[in-house]
């Protein structure tokens, strides 16, 4: 499709206008405190961001997780999962599974990759668990763990990768994380009538025992764990799908 010079001028003019509009409106922002005053006064957990994300607006966080879940589902579908018609993919993936290509990484990378991956995983777990006290939380920790997976995958290739997250394992983790979030919300609904109610204790037993002085954390750590597992599984699934032919072959019924 050929684009004439007139059209290019029109496009640049309109982007100029739109950009000027966006810039003008952002430049003249005067932030009104509004309901934020409440968010910073009421202490739920020491990390105010987590308090807003998981307590005041927990349902939004659930929605954000579901965006990731849906994206992973759709990405899986591009590689043949559950399609009504596979013939197109069969033609694309006609040739046999390619061999791993050794990109000539030096031994330093291969020696360092495993310890770094292990430490990254552990750090990711700690970041997930400390989400209600320190900066971090489920999204960040999950991303750390899946970064460890990607690191191992890049250094060793798919065949000899020491971190073996199988597709089925990742699917289970993802479903478990999302179900944990949804079901904790339902439990809150049964106990109090409000969905995603932050239950502090059941019959006097605190739900998540934590030291005094950091507020009643309630279900927030569990929600963090759910989100973390889901993010870990989602990002790793996408990596697995992108590097591996075998999943496609299995999905289109040849594996």
């Amino acid at each position, binding site marked *: 499709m050929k684009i004439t010079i007139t059209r290019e001028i029109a496009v640049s003019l309109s982007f100029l206008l739109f950009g000027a509009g966006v810039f003008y409106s952002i430049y003249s922002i005067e932030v009104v405190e509004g309901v934020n005053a409440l968010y910073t006064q009421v202490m739920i957990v020491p990390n105010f961001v987590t308090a807003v994300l998981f307590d005041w607006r927990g349902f939004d966080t659930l929605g954000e997780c579901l965006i990731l879940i849906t994206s992973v589902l*759709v990405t899986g579908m591009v590689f043949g999962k559950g399609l009504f018609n596979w013939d197109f993919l069969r033609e694309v993936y006609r040739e046999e599974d390619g061999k791993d290509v050794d990109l000539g990484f030096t031994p330093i990378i291969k020696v360092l990759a495993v310890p770094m991956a292990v430490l990254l995983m552990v750090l990711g777990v700690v970041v997930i668990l400390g989400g209600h006290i320190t900066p971090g939380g489920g999204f960040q920790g999950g991303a750390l763990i899946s970064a460890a997976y990607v690191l191992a995958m890049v250094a060793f290739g798919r065949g000899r990768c020491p971190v073996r997250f199988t597709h089925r394992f990742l699917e289970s983790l993802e479903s478990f994380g999302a179900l944990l979030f949804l079901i904790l919300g339902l439990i809150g609904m049964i106990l109090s009538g409000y969905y995603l109610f932050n239950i502090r204790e059941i019959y006097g037993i605190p739900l998540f025992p934590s030291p005094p002085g950091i507020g009643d954390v309630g279900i927030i750590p569990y929600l963090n764990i759910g989100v973390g597992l889901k993010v870990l599984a989602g990002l790793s699934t996408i990596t697995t799908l992108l590097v591996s032919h075998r999943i496609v072959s299995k999905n289109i019924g040849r594996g």
Partner: protein
Amino acid sequence: MNLLPLIVVIPLLMAIVFSYIYRSKYIRLLTLLMALVLLVLPLLGLYGPYFFGGHGVVYIEGMPFVSGILYTLNPLKETLIFTLMLIGVLVLIISTREERLSGTFTALVLMGLASVSAVILTEDLFNLYVFYEIAAITQAGLVILAGREEAYRSAFRYLLVGTMAGSILLLGVGLLLSATGSLNIVDMGRYLALKPLTPTVYGALLMLIVGLAYGGGLPPFHTLKVDLYSRTKPFVAAILQTYSKFILIALMLVILKLFGGLPIFNTTRGVLIALSVFAMVFGTVMALLQDDYRRLLAYHTVSQGGYVALGLALGTPLGIVAGIFHGINHALYKSALFIGAHIVEKIKSPYMREVGGLLLAMPTVTFLILCAKLASIGIPPFNGFQSKLLLAEAVMSADMPELVILMLIVSIGTFLYMMKAFYLIFLKPCSEEQLREYREVRISKYHIFSLGLLVLLCIVLGLYPDMVLDRLLPLGEEIAIE
């Protein structure tokens, strides 16, 4: 106990379960059971507000603020959700007759149903954005499911533009948050009405309109939507077009609630009316030129979306009611037409010139599709007539008779291409062996049942429109702008 969140939560929960067991043998059975559950859902909620997490209204410096996320249910939303769930149920039932059905399809349909009902129910702008994004990804996913190269292409294109439009909408939500200090739509509307307008608010309005045009399929995004509808299986297009119609209605109501009383609303109204008239005319003109039956129906969807948007953009009580009523009617008869197109595609081909003489092969289906077509044109005993009449009244009373003329002209165009399609597919003479070929294809009872149910609803709503209108009118008065 108010079980309102279950309308959203149960489909989400089941979507995750279905995506986990997508290869199971019992998927067909489970899908049918799930369809039954979906029918119960709209009855669960009670009218009134529902605060998530127990965070209710707080007073900061004398101003009431909703501190958490608020959902409300009222008769209008209930009607919309009932229609949505009904069409979802019928699509799920039809899907069990498909070869190679997997849990993924059910999961995606459920995810879409949940997110669109959340968009309808929510009173919170960020929550609306989140579920709007899920709905956009779900629509692309449902198109990818068709498993053809062109489907991949159009879904990719839709997501590509969707990234841009979604980010613009998110930026708009952020600007509104900074300008008002709240995310609750009612709180924001009240704050905006009190304080003088700043450029930030104009920017936010601009971005909300971009989000609306993308979500609802108004120009210039209509070509993307048409690609989506025409490249997937037609019965999937039935649920896709329902999603985008209802997102259109919900976002229109949000814009009315936020900017309704402001001095800028006059301009906004002009922009929205212009967009909807463009949609009406472009859809009709393009539909007249199509050879592919699915594309024709897709462009028809765009032009009817223009009617819906026109009614809502007027901002008068009658206009809002007429727009929403037309949205519901449109969802019903258009789903019937898409299911009919699915049958036609199954028997022979979606290209109108290759088919012909289907009347002799299946008279019942032909009659039902004819009824749906008449409803879509706006012939009296059907529901399309009632809502178009109401729309014309609303436009007349808003002092824009020219638009009524335009609506009539567009209706004539609609009549023409619908009848052209009907002639080419069902009436055009065909050879004896072609007829034998048609008779070999078995059409499932489920297809005919869904088609019949939708046509029956069209007739019932056409004869007794008050069933729905009585529920919409009080809310139309409430939202409307003087």
